[in-house]
Each structure stands twice: as C-alpha cells, then as structure tokens.
C-alpha cells in the first residue's frame, strides 16, 4: 500500500485530471484537480460509471477504443468537449494507459485528461485570423471582412462584444463599420454621430487619437450624452482604441463592450490592439484597391477617349496586344495579326522600318517615330507610329492616322503661298512709284545716250571713241533695266517654294538694292552691319526677300514722323546657337509694349498703307522656314525686328 499511497500523492500533485479505471473502463478514482475542472463537489456521481458513457456519438467510440488500446498494453487517445456544471464548455485531451500490478499483469487503466480549452481557442483564433486575412487578400467587401474580424475577436473572450466604427473622409463623423453581435438598434442610434472630446468611448478615442477605457458607462462623464442609449441596451463597459493609417491618420475605432463594469486585462488590451491592427489592414487594403480600381477605370476611360491605335509588340516584332476604339478602321482585323510577326502582316516597305525601330527603342528611354502609308492607291492613308519601350523586351507602338492632318498641312501650305504672293504683289504695288523710277533711270540714260549718238553722227568727223562709249552705256543701261524687271518678275512669281542654301547677307543686299529708290525718296539712310562668313540658311530666296522687304517698308513707315536727318534703318546679321539672325532697326517712335506681339496678328497695323498682313505673312514665312520673328523696342528709341533662321544642315 505504500506504493499505492505514493502513487496517490503523485497523482494528486499532477495539474491534470487523473482518473483510474477498472479494466472494463469504469471510473474508480478521480483526483481533486479533475473534480475542480469539472466543477464537481465530490467524486461519488462519477464512480463506477463507464468513462465512455459520459460521451456520445463519435467521441464515445473514440473513448471506447482508447480504453481498448490501453487494455492491449498500448496508449489510447481521444479529445472531448464537456460542459461544466456552470455551463462553460471546455475541451480536453485524454490519454489512456495501462497500469501494471505486482503480478506483472495489467491491473488498472490510467486516464489523464488535460484542459486544452485555451489552446483550442488560440488555434481557433489563429484560424479565424487567417480567414480574415484571406478575405482581405481576396477582395471581400470591407463590411464582410470587419464582421468576420469582430466575430473572431469576440470568440476569443467570453461575454465580450465588439464594434468597428469608420471615420468619414471629413474627419468628423463616425459611421457604422461592423457590429454583428450588438443590437442593430444601438448601432443605428450611434451611426453618423460627430466625434469629439466627450463623445462616448469611440468618438472620444477618434477625436484624441488615443485609447479610451471606460470601465463604467453609468458614471463616466464621457458617456453623458449617450448614457441612456447604452444602458438601455445593457452595455456597461466600453474600451475603444483608434485605428490609425500608416500616416497616423485616424481611420476609425475598434471597441469592446461588456455588460458589466470592468477594466481590461493586459491580454484584453493586446487583443483590442490586435483587432484594431487587422481592421487597419482591411481599411487600408480596401482604400488601396479602390484607388487601383479608380486608376484602372481612368486608364480605361483614357483608352476609350484616345483615337490612336495602340499595339504592344515584342522586340522582334510580334503583335502581343492591341487597343483600338474602332477596330473596323484597322487595315487588318486584330484576329489576323495578333500573335503574328509584323513582317508577315504588313508589306516589307512598312514592316521593315517599324521592326527596326522596335529593336532600336526596346529597353531604352528613346522614342522613335515612323511615318508610313497603307491602303489602296485610291484610298492611301498616312500613319505615324510613336514607339516607346514598355518592358525590357516589349515596345508600345502608338499609331495615329495623319492623313487628314497632312492634307490640311498641304492645304495650309498652298494657302500661305497664295497669301504670300498676294502680299508681295500688294507690297510691290505700294512701291510702284519708286520701282517705276528704278526702270525710268536706265531708260532715261538709254534714250539720252541714243539721241546723243545720233547727234554725234551728224558731225562731219564723228568722235568714234565717244560713240563707242555711248553705245557701251546704252548696252549697260539696257541690261540694268532688264535686271530690274528680272527682280520684279521673281517677286511677282507665283511658284512653289524652292528651298536652297542662301547667304542671308545676299538677301539683305538684294532687298536694299531693290528698295534703293524707296529709301531715297523717303529720305531714309541705310546702315548695314552684316557679319562676314555667315553660315548659309535653307530657304526660299523670294520669300525671305519678301520678309526683309516688309521689315524695310515697315521701318520706313515707322519713321514717317521722324525728322529726315534722323531717319536711319540699320540692317544687321549675326549668327549664334545654330541660327542666323537678320535684324532691322528703325528710329521711329517704337511699338507700345503691349503691342509687341500683336503686330504679328493679321489686320493689326500702325501703317497708313497696307492691309496689316505684312508682318503676319512674314511670321508665317519665317515659321515655315523653322525660324522665329519678334519685335522689341530699342533702348535709344525705335523698334527692332529680329528674324531667326536655322542654319542649313550640311549634307
């Protein structure tokens, strides 16, 4: 019996429920720990009853087989759930082992049960947590995720109810988030209430951005406004913690309610923070995915709005994807080219330059532009592809139908040529007086010389040397008149633009020669300040002359009121930064500073004569040459017009 006593002592000291069973599985003994676990005052009610008889169904079978195992000298094991006499459900893990008597044979069985309720809860909590996180990850609605989260936290602690409130974007109004276990009427009552320094636990927690523990709603001043409502639903304690974004912006609150006054344990504080943390993840995730959806919707809207076609191509030219608002406009339908190489889809003259551009651009920051034409001869269309790298091995080709624009450009070009011509005619018309003078001078010389020669011939001994000189002068002046006519004919010509390398100084000199009469009759002195060795510009001689002539006439007009001795027009040329500048400065009264740009608008004129188209046309000519023209006032009076033209590229 000493052994037996010792055994009992050991058994009583074990923290688990220990039962000794007879070989047929009847309870013969239960230790005090076991009685406490089952919340029983004494062992009598259990004794001599079969262990398996306390269970039902599968658990009973498991218990029976565990007893059987032990009788066969092995370990039997089963788990069971049991409601204590106070009604709390507990989980146990039971091991049944054989006990060997002094004879060496199995005399009794030992059943040891361990309370695993806390462990089971931990496991259930972990499972729930995985479930909640999975819901977040798979894009469940925020309401569903928060409901599940609240149930998960509630399951962790007995008798506790949770809520999640969300703070509106305006930062002042609390909205219902989740409260699956609290009465709906209570949640309706607090939905939409403003947060503040005394707005219950949650409203106050969101207002101050810190945890608020109210141990007794009945007495706490924070609940003054909502006390009746809460007490009406049997709520007595409420602990709330704010939910923060990573930027410490309050997103909402996570709260625990109890039906009796109490303060939280450390574990409960940890739990409430844990709940708030998961709620933050859920809210953040929902907002992020909302932002992604909005961004996606925007992208889709942009794609719908873009008339261009977009092709995603592999670097070696295979069509991977395509976007077109109206696929019927595509020369080849998507089904016929997706997955195929561009060389097998488009004619070589088009496919080859595109394929080369794909290779060139892929993996770089560069953009390539390729212009090409497709379609039948009757309906040939012009396209421009802008090609950029989009992945390390893919390119995006954005294709635009340029046909209409190209045609419009050609039309505009023709219109501009026509207008420039009319303007030249008008300008020469204004100068007709002095231009006639240009012709009448040599003609007068020719006539006088011819008549002088005839008179010389009437002499008995004509001076043949004088006659030869006279005839030479006639020939020279006839040629001089011819040159004037040639210049006029060139300016009046209505031809296509003929781009050729031109020395800007020649343009200026030609115009000064042409307008010599005009300048003299207007008493305008000319100063030329032309740089030598200027690079050539690529341009149309006549049109550039027109620009300079227009600036010359404008300059003369600007000085109509200037004393004759002060009327000076300075022509200068210079080169810098890949362009050549031709500048014309007058000594007039200048241009009002707010009009410096306006003078280039059509029909804006400060001149008495002319339509006011000269500068507008000059600008369009210069712009068509890739240059620019602007006006500025001189520090010492008058205005300067500066015309910049790009230097012709060699080769």
């Amino acid at each position, binding site marked *: 019996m000493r052994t037996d006593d010792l055994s009992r002592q050991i058994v009583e000291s074990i923290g688990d429920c220990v039962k000794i069973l007879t070989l047929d599985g009847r309870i013969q003994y239960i230790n005090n720990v076991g009685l406490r676990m089952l919340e029983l005052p004494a062992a009598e009610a259990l004794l001599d009853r079969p262990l398996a008889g306390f269970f039902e169904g599968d658990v009973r079978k498991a218990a029976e087989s565990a007893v059987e195992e032990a009788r066969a000298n092995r370990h039997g094991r089963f788990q069971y759930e049991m409601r204590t006499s106070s009604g709390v459900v507990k989980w146990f893990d039971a091991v049944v082992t054989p006990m060997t008597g002094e004879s060496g044979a199995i005399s009794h069985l030992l059943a040891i049960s361990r309370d695993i309720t806390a462990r089971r809860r931990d496991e259930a909590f972990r499972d729930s947590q995985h479930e909640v996180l999975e819901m977040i990850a798979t894009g469940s609605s925020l309401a569903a995720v928060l409901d599940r989260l609240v149930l998960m936290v509630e399951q962790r602690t007995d008798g506790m109810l949770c809520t999640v409130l969300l703070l509106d974007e305006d930062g002042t109004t609390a909205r219902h988030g989740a409260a699956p276990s609290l009465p709906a009427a209570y949640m309706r009552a607090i939905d939409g209430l403003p947060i503040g320094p005394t707005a219950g636990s949650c409203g106050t927690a969101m207002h101050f951005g810190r945890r608020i523990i109210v141990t007794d709603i009945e007495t706490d001043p924070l609940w003054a406004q909502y006390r009746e409502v809460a007490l009406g639903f049997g709520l007595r304690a409420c602990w709330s913690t704010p939910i923060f974004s990573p930027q410490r912006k309050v997103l909402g609150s996570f709260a625990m309610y109890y039906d009796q006054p109490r303060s939280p344990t450390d574990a409960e504080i940890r739990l409430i923070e844990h709940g708030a943390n998961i709620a933050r993840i859920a809210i953040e995730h929902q907002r992020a995915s909302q932002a992604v959806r909005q961004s996606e919707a925007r992208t889709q809207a942009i794609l719908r709005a873009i008339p261009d076609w977009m092709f995603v191509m592999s670097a070696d030219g295979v069509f991977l994807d395509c976007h077109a608002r109206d696929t019927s406009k595509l020369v080849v339908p998507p089904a016929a080219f997706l997955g195929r190489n561009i060389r097998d889809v488009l004619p070589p003259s088009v496919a080859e330059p595109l394929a080369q551009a794909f290779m060139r651009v892929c993996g770089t920051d560069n953009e390539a532009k390729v212009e090409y034409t497709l379609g039948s001869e009757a309906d040939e269309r012009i396209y421009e592809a802008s090609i950029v790298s989009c992945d390390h091995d893919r390119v995006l080709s954005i294709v635009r139908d340029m046909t209409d624009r190209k045609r419009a450009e050609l039309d505009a070009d023709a219109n501009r040529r026509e207008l420039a011509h009319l303007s030249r005619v008008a300008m020469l018309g204004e100068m007709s*007086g*002095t*231009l*006639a*003078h*240009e012709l*009448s*001078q*040599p*003609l*007068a*010389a*020719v*006539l*006088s*010389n011819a*008549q*002088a020669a005839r*008179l*010389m011939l009437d002499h008995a001994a004509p001076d043949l040397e*004088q006659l030869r000189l*006279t005839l030479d*002068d006639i020939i*020279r*002046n006839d040629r*001089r008149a011819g040159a004037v006519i040639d210049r006029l004919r060139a300016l009046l010509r209505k031809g296509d633009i003929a781009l050729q390398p031109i020395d800007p100084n020649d343009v200026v000199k030609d115009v000064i020669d042409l307008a010599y*009469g005009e300048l*003299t*009759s207007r*008493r305008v002195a000319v100063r030329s300040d032309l740089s030598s060795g200027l690079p050539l510009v690529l341009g149309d001689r006549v049109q550039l002359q027109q620009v300079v002539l227009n600036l010359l006439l404008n300059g003369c007009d600007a000085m109509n009121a200037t004393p004759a001795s002060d009327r000076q027009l300075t022509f200068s040329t210079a080169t810098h930064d890949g362009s050549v500048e031709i500048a014309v400065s007058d000594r007039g009264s200048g241009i009002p500073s707010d009009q410096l740009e306006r003078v280039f608008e059509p029909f804006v004129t400060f001149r008495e004569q002319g339509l006011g188209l000269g500068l507008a046309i000059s600008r369009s000519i210069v712009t068509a040459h890739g240059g620019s023209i602007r006006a500025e006032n001189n520090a010492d009076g008058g205005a300067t017009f500066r015309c910049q033209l790009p230097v012709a590229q060699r080769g």
Partner: protein
Amino acid sequence: MTLAIVDDDQDVRTALARLLTAMGHRVTVFASAEDFEAAPVVVDCMIVDVRLPGINGLEFRQKLRSQSASVPLVLMTGDGDRLNRDARIGDTPIVSKPFDDMTLTAAIADAILATKATAGGHAH
C-alpha cells in the same frame, strides 16, 4: 547755253551731259544739291532730278527761289515722286524720264521764259 545737271544717278547724269553737249551746250554735272552748293556755278538753266539724297529737288528749288537771283530750273522725275507728269510747279516745268531731246529743249526754253516773266513782273 550753259547748263548744270544735278542727278545722283551717274548713268543718267553722263548720258544727259553727253546729249546736251552734243546739242552744243556747255554742261556741268553735280551728284547732289549739296555738291552744287559747295561749288556753285552761274548757268542759264539748271536741270535737277526731283529725287535726290539729302536735299531733294523740290527743296533745292525752294532754296534757289528764296535767293534773290532766280535761275531757270527744270525738274526731272522718274515718276516715282508722285508728281503729275504734266504738272509744273510755278515757273518750273517738270519732265518725266525717259524724255527725248525735244521735250527737254522745250522744257529748258519754257523755264527760261517763265523765270524771265516772273522776274519781269517784279520791279525791273
């Protein structure tokens, strides 16, 4: 007759001088009114281009007329001076380039007569 020609165009100046010399006149040429003023000569008639750099033909005429001696004057125009080709200014006939020897001779005679008439109309 002694004549002075003022014209900035050397070709015109030379040709006109050649013609008038062949017609038997003595001719002095000037490229501008300023040149004439720098070295004035007394002549029977001056033939002056309207369009001149510096002092132009019309201003030159005014200057000459403001002086006591009234020299006969013919103005030449290249039709670029917006003057009526048939017009005359007071006692000064205007010829339009190109003109022939008859026209010029008539204008010179006209100028001399007109100047005499004007002078005669005064106290002389």
